[in-house]
């Protein structure tokens, strides 16, 4: 099967509000950045383009159509879109390259979720007959999951606070972070409860912005003459929507995806996990069977800023950056979608040398 190389990645600053900028204006700087990294001019110079976004976050149908205006799609291009995080756009593009219909692909994800009340908006992702009419927001659902985790004895509130403290500390080195700093676990634990047992700090700060990536065949990467990371495995799994039927303290779909992606075939030096709530990082680390020798979310993860529809792709991008820079040789990236980690994608990245 065709080997896939990741050759470029860029993400915007995580902004609480992107102000006046529209989709095109959010996307374009990231596209220009990845073009520059491989030395191409525009989307005409890649064989396939795929994006990830969600209409409801912006509150307008066909939000992604405007995104095409950022590409320079004249003459017409091969282009597709997933109503998911752009990590799944990456997945679609991988299939395209494997089948021999593209040697290179541009991916991007974007959202301006500050336009609406995200936790409420996402409540309409639930079963429309039984759950959505209850308007159960995403924070409350995550809180139910956190409660189960605490009661099961698998984690403590202190463990959750440690995730937050470490993430914020790591984010000090992340120039795009919305939130970073040194805060002690005790300080975090002293904060008021928000949606019990979650404190505000346990919820990753949502951000507006965009991210873009270029992938290609290894031959193409050599032709471009840029450092690259090999995407040695990628898989994703979904599990039942019925929360009552899931063991919410575990992530079975992450385990399945990790096995299929080959996580266990080598050491995991870095893991970038898309955990929008602190307790979910604990669940994911266990599902991925990460040991003490793995650095989790050295970028600060989404606690530096949760770019909706792009955070999954950004996790892959963060691992790519470290491999391309020669910092590490092997890492794992993860993306999630749906309430309480319903749908998970796992990618394994390796150094080419």
């Amino acid at each position: 099967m065709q080997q896939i190389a990741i050759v470029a990645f860029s993400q915007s600053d995580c902004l609480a509000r992107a102000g006046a900028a529209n989709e095109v204006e959010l996307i374009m700087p990231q596209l220009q950045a990845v073009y520059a990294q491989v030395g191409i001019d525009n989307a005409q110079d890649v064989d396939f383009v795929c994006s990830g976004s969600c209409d409801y976050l912006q509150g307008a149908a066909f939000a992604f159509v405007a995104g095409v205006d950022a590409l320079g799609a004249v003459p017409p291009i091969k282009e597709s879109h997933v109503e998911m995080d752009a990590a799944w756009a990456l997945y679609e593009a991988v299939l395209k390259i494997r089948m021999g219909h593209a040697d290179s692909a541009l991916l991007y994800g974007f959202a301006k979720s500050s336009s609406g009340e995200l936790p409420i908006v996402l409540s309409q992702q639930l079963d429309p007959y039984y759950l959505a009419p209850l308007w159960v927001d995403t924070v409350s659902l995550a809180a139910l999951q956190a409660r189960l985790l605490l009661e099961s004895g698998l984690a403590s509130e202190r463990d959750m606070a440690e995730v937050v403290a470490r993430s914020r500390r790591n984010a000090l080195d992340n120039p795009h972070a919305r939130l970073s700093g040194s805060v002690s676990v005790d300080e975090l634990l002293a904060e008021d409860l928000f949606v019990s047992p979650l404190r505000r700090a346990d919820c990753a700060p949502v951000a507006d912005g965009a991210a873009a990536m270029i992938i290609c065949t290894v031959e193409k990467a050599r032709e471009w003459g840029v450092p690259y990371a090999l995407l040695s495995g990628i898989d994703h799994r979904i599990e039942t929507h019925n929360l009552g039927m899931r063991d919410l303290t575990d992530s079975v779909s992450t385990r399945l995806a990790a096995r299929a992606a080959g996580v266990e075939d080598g050491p995991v030096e870095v893991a970038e996990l898309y955990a929008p709530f602190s307790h979910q990082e604990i669940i994911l680390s266990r599902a991925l069977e990460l040991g003490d020798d793995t650095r989790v979310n050295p970028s600060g993860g989404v606690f530096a800023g949760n770019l909706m529809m792009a955070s999954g792709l950004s996790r892959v991008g963060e691992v790519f950056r470290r491999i391309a820079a020669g910092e590490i040789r092997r890492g794992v990236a993860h993306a999630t979608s749906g309430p309480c980690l319903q749908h998970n994608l796992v990618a394994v990245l390796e150094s080419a040398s």
Partner: protein
Amino acid sequence: MADTADTITGIECPVYLQYHFTAGRAPARFLTRIKEGVLSGQRCPRCSNVYIPPRGSCPACGVPTEEEVELPDKGTVQSFTVVAIPIPNNPIKPPFVVANLVLDGANISFIHLLSECENSEVRIGQRVQAVWKPREEWGYAMDNIRYFRPIDEPDVPVAQIGKLPVTGREG
């Protein structure tokens, strides 16, 4: 079991979500100018085509557009339809004409109403001009222009629609 006649197959369940919509930097600039009664487009630095209303990029070249170009309120009918059904929450009575119009100096059409004319006499290439609302009613909106109406100028040959200079027919 209830009678089949009484079986409920659906309930009304309205969903209200509130958004603070932002148009984008370029459209916001356009809307600011139109509040002053000025039609302002943007020129692509690469292909030199002028877009109005601007969206901040040239869709053909995929590059940001920044140079502003002030355009007249005269233009040409690129195509049109006569709409026979009412638009929800709109006082305009059918049948009315919706046209794709290109302003002089612009290279792309936008949609607006055409009025003060016989619907049967509207044609591709016809020259038109904006009829503005009274100045005190102007807001940040495209409908500061109430509609366009035909003007007494010769039709534009089809091949030249979308290619006229800002000076219009005589330029």
